C-alpha cells in the first residue's frame, strides 16, 4: 500500500517536472509552472519518507535543515550578476549528492551489485566525480579564486587522454569484477582529477559553455542513479537536465560560432594568445557625458546594446533610468540582445528584467538588426565582441563568422567602457575607431549616472 503511494507520488512528480519545464516556453506561464514543479518535488520527498526502509529520521532532518539554511541565502542573496558561478556551484552540489549515493550503494552491496547495476553505479560516480571538481574549478575561475586565464603546459592533452583512458579501463574492469573495491575508489579519485585537468586549460570567459556541459553530465549522473536504485523520477529528471545542458552549450557554441573541441581544447579566452589586429595608428574620439546626453536627448530612436560590462558594473538599473529619461524627451528606446552577450545565455535579459525593463522591449538579434539604420544613436554599454565588425569582414579574426549586432549601421555610436581593453575574445574592435563612434570612458554605472543627471538638465 505505502509502496503504491510512493510510486504514485513519483509518477506525479515526473509529470509536474515536465510541465514545469514546458511552462518555461512562455514567460507568462513560467512562474506558475515552476511552482507546480516545486510541489512535485515535495510530493516525491513525502513519498520517499513514508517508505519502510526509512527507519531513522535524525540525520535526514539534520540534512534537510542544514541544506535549507545554506540554500535560502543562495536563493535570495546571490546577485543576478553572479549567476554563472552560482549555477556552477550548484552543479557541484548536485553531482556530490549523486556520487555519494553511488558510493553508499557500492559500500552496501559491492560485489552483489552484478554487472548491470555496477555499470549504472559506475556511470553515476564517474560523471558525478568529474562534475564535482569540474564545477568547482569553473566556480573558482568565475569567482576569480583561481586565475581565469587558461592554464596550459606542454603535453597537457597527452596527460588528459591517458588519465581518461586509464579510468575507462578501470570502469570496464569493474563491470566484470564488481567486487574489487580498490579499483572502484581509485576510479573515483581519477575522475576527480579529470574534472580538474579538464577545466584547467579553459579560459574563464569560456566557462559558461563548460558549465552547461557539466550540467548535462550532472544530469546523466542522476539518471544513472535512477538506473542504479531503480527509480524512474530520477531517470526522467536526469534526462531533462542532461538535455537542457547539452542544448544550451550547443546554442552558445553556435552563437560564438565555435565547435566544442575549440571550446574544450582551444584554450580560447586566453587573450594575449589571440589578439590579431592592433590599434596602431588609429585614434578614437572620446566624448563628455554632457555632449552624449545632448545627443541622446534629441534622438528619435535609441538602440541600447548591453554587454558583459553592464553586468560587471551592475548598471542595469541606471540603464532603465536613462531609457525612461530618453522617452520623456520623446525618443524611442529599444534593447538589442545578442544571444551570447554577457557570460551566460539570457544574461542580459535577466539583468534588465531585474531592473523592471518589460521584456517586450528586448529584441533578439534577428528582430533588431534591420532597425539599426533607422537608429540615431546606438548606445553600447559594456558590449564589445558582439558588435565587432571583424566578425563580418576580417577572415583572420578568431570571431570571424560569428553573427553580430549591426550597431555600426546606426547614425551615431556611443560606447561606454572603462579603457581600450579588449573584450572576452581579446581582440581589437574597429567599431571604436569608426568616425561615427565616440567613447564615454569610465565604469558603466558611473557614466550612466552622469548621463542621467546631464539628461535632467538638458
Amino acid at each position, binding site marked *: 500500500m505505502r509502496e503504491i503511494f510512493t510510486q504514485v507520488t513519483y509518477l506525479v512528480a515526473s509529470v509536474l517536472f515536465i510541465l514545469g519545464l514546458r511552462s518555461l516556453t512562455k514567460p507568462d506561464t513560467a512562474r506558475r509552472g515552476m511552482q507546480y514543479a516545486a510541489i512535485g518535488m515535495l510530493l516525491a520527498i513525502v513519498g520517499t519518507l513514508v517508505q519502510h526502509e526509512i527507519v531513522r529520521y535524525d540525520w535526514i532532518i539534520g540534512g534537510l535543515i542544514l541544506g535549507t539554511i545554506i540554500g535560502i541565502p543562495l536563493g535570495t542573496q546571490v546577485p543576478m550578476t553572479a549567476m554563472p558561478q552560482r549555477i556552477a556551484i550548484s552543479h557541484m552540489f548536485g553531482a556530490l549528492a549523486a556520487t*555519494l549515493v553511488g558510493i553508499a550503494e557500492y559500500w552496501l552491496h559491492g560485489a552483489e551489485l552484478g554487472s548491470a547495476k555496477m555499470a549504472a553505479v559506475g556511470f553515476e560516480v564517474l560523471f558525478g566525480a568529474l562534475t564535482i571538481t569540474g564545477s568547482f574549478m569553473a566556480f573558482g575561475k568565475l569567482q576569480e579564486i583561481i586565475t581565469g586565464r587558461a592554464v596550459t603546459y606542454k603535453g597537457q592533452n597527452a596527460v588528459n587522454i591517458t588519465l581518461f583512458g586509464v579510468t575507462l579501463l578501470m570502469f570496464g574492469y569493474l563491470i566484470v569484477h564488481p567486487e574489487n573495491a580498490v579499483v572502484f575508489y581509485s576510479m573515483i579519485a581519477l575522475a576527480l582529477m579529470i574534472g580538474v585537468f579538464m577545466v584547467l586549460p579553459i579560459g574563464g570567459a569560456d566557462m559558461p559553455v563548460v558549465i552547461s556541459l557539466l550540467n548535462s553530465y550532472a544530469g546523466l549522473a542522476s539518471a544513472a542513479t535512477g538506473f542504479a536504485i531503480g527509480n524512474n523520477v530520477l531517470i526522467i529528471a536526469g534526462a531533462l537536465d542532461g538535455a537542457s545542458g547539452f542544448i544550451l552549450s550547443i546554442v552558445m557554441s553556435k552563437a560564438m560560432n565555435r565547435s566544442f573541441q575549440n571550446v574544450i581544447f582551444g584554450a580560447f579566452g586566453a587573450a594575449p594568445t589571440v589578439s590579431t589586429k592592433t590599434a596602431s595608428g588609429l585614434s578614437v574620439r572620446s566624448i563628455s557625458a554632457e555632449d552624449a546626453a545632448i545627443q541622446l536627448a534629441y534622438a528619435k530612436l535609441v538602440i541600447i546594446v548591453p554587454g558583459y560590462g553592464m553586468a560587471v558594473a551592475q548598471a542595469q538599473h541606471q540603464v532603465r533610468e536613462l531609457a525612461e529619461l530618453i522617452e520623456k524627451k520623446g525618443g524611442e528606446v529599444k534593447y538589442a540582445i545578442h544571444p551570447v552577450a554577457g557570460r551566460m545565455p539570457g544574461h542580459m535579459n535577466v539583468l534588465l528584467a531585474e531592473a523592471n525593463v518589460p521584456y517586450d522591449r528586448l529584441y533578439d538579434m534577428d528582430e533588431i538588426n534591420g532597425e539599426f539604420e533607422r537608429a540615431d544613436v546606438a548606445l553600447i554599454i559594456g558590449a564589445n565582441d558582439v558588435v565587432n565588425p571583424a566578425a563580418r569582414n576580417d577572415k583572420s579574426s578568431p570571431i570571424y563568422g560569428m553573427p553580430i549586432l549591426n550597431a555600426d549601421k546606426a547614425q551615431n555610436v556611443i560606447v561606454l567602457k572603462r579603457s581600450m581593453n579588449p573584450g572576452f575574445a581579446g581582440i581589437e574592435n574597429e567599431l571604436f575607431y569608426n568616425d561615427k563612434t565616440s567613447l564615454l570612458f569610465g565604469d558603466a554605472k558611473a557614466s550612466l549616472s552622469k548621463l542621467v543627471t546631464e539628461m535632467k538638465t538638458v
Partner: protein
Amino acid sequence: MNLTGFMQLYVFMLAAFVGYQIITRVPPLLHTPLMSATNAISAISLVGSLVAAGSDRGMVSTILGFVAVTAATINMVGGFVITDRMLKMFRREPATPKVDPAAAAKPEATK
C-alpha cells in the same frame, strides 16, 4: 541485462525526447531561469539520498546519505527560490512604480 533494465532504457529514451523537444522551444529570454530550473529539479536525487541517510545500514551509509541530503537540499531550496525570484522579474507591461519584493533587494530598483 534484465527486463527492468530495458524498461529504464525506455523511460530514459522517452524522457530525453521530451526534454529535447521542450528545451529547444525555450526562448533565449528565459535561458538563465531555465538553467536554475533544471538545477532545482535535479535536486530530486534527494529521493536516493534520503534512503541512504535514513535506512540505518551502518554509519558510513548514514553519513554519506546525510551529506548527500544536505547537498541536494541546498539545490532544491536555492534552485526553486532563485528561479522564482528571476521569473517574478520578467514583466510584459511597463515597469510599475510600486516597490516589488524581488527588486527591493537592490535599492535602485525602487526608484
